[in-house]
């Protein structure tokens, strides 16, 4: 994936290609381990149940990582993410699917920065909503 998106190609209101993430136990545990987050509720079902949940659930770093991936899949290799601000909602549990969608909501000519508003929705509602700011290259590359 070496293609990239230019600042001038992006318009307010542009929608990002949607991304469906299958929420498997493997993903939830792999994300927790890759982020070095061994809080038991993210890898141990019994601990999760003692905390009142039915199963292990996704940690915040994995949510952040998936949101970032979703936006840079679209923006390409020459983008630089500068800010990720998210609000957390319903947990991501195994067996569900999270559908990520995004829309360009702001552009800053001077810095070449664009803001993408993102929503990650599962069967129970919004798992995550928020914004990602990223700088895109200007002109032909």
């Amino acid at each position, binding site marked *: *994936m*070496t293609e*990239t998106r230019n600042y001038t190609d992006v318009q307010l209101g542009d929608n990002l290609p949607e991304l469906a*993430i299958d929420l498997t136990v493997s*993903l939830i545990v*792999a*994300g927790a*381990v*890759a*982020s*070095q*987050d*061994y*809080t*038991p509720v993210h890898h*141990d079902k019994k601990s999760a*149940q*003692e*905390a*009142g*949940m*039915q*199963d292990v659930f996704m940690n*915040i*770093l*994995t949510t*952040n*990582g*998936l*949101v*970032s*991936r979703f936006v*840079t*899949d679209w923006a*390409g*290799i*020459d*983008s*630089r*993410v*500068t*800010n*990720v*601000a*998210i*609000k*957390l909602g*319903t*947990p991501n*549990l195994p*067996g*569900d699917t999270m559908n990520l969608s995004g829309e360009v909501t702001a552009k800053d000519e001077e810095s070449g920065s664009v803001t993408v508003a993102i929503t990650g929705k599962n*069967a*129970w*509602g919004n798992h995550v909503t928020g914004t990602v700011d990223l700088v895109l*290259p200007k002109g032909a590359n």
Partner: protein
Amino acid sequence: MAISGKEREDFEKKLEAYVGIDIGLEDVGRNPVNEAMVRQWCEAMGDELGAYTDAAAAEQSVHQGLVAPPTMLQAWILGGVAMASGEDDPRDKQKELHRLFDAHGFTGVVATNTEQQYLRYLRPGDEVRAKTSIESISEQKATGLGIGYFINTRTVFRVQDDEEVGSLTFRVLKFEAEERPAATDESAAPMAGKPQRIKPALGHDNEWWWQRVEQGELVIQKCSACGALRHPTRPMCGECQSTDWESVPASGRGTIYSFVVIHYPEVPGYTYPLVVAVVDMEEGTRFVSNVVDIEPEEVEIGMSVQASVELVDDEMKLPVFRRV
């Protein structure tokens, strides 16, 4: 019941002492930023951006070499396997603050917001360390989870030569959790399985109609005395006051009398936007249900529709309407 009066005053005074302080510990990454941990992260996330794992592509990009995914920032300083023990470092003022909340009945904790700012991407070899301070504690708030307080912390990340590379603000709610047994019975856990639609309230006067729907039939209640049709089902004829009734099959053909498109609030188990229509059935009664397989903006009053009894989720059958 949340604490009140003098007890609350004393508690909130104790909280004030924590605002603005460092939590007292510096988190130091046990390894410098490295390709192995980046690769593992990218595999977990399904992230194939060349900047992280393809040296040649990264070299030619704006990054001029391999970089770490920005959202990995905190991963470089987290505790790893040691976190599983759940033991707190007694010097940790943030944990101490949480225990103070626990002792006053605010035992629940949930992360509500995070914001990460990246001044530059990290590169293999960067040695990350982080310091966290308690930025603010909100007034007591009534929330959907219960009464509680929001705690904002801010973590600043630095690398060698004391260069600041990014920051994380983290907002948690400490709340008075309702007593809830452990979810050992999976079906009793919140959000067990897939969400299903809200079931109709069944009683003596309507259960028979829903049982027919369950068998795939759509019927209309008919007065056995005067022959008048009625829906929704009820015990007495509005025309002749007879309580004798029977049912006749409905053709399912009708026209839309009125409709709404529901966007908000979204209830789990339903697909939005959701078209809900009142349909004039050709027999003369009206049904309320969804119009499906159509863009909401194409639905019109007077449009001809046909009912079909179908499963609308894993459990419930419902007559739904389609344009004909």
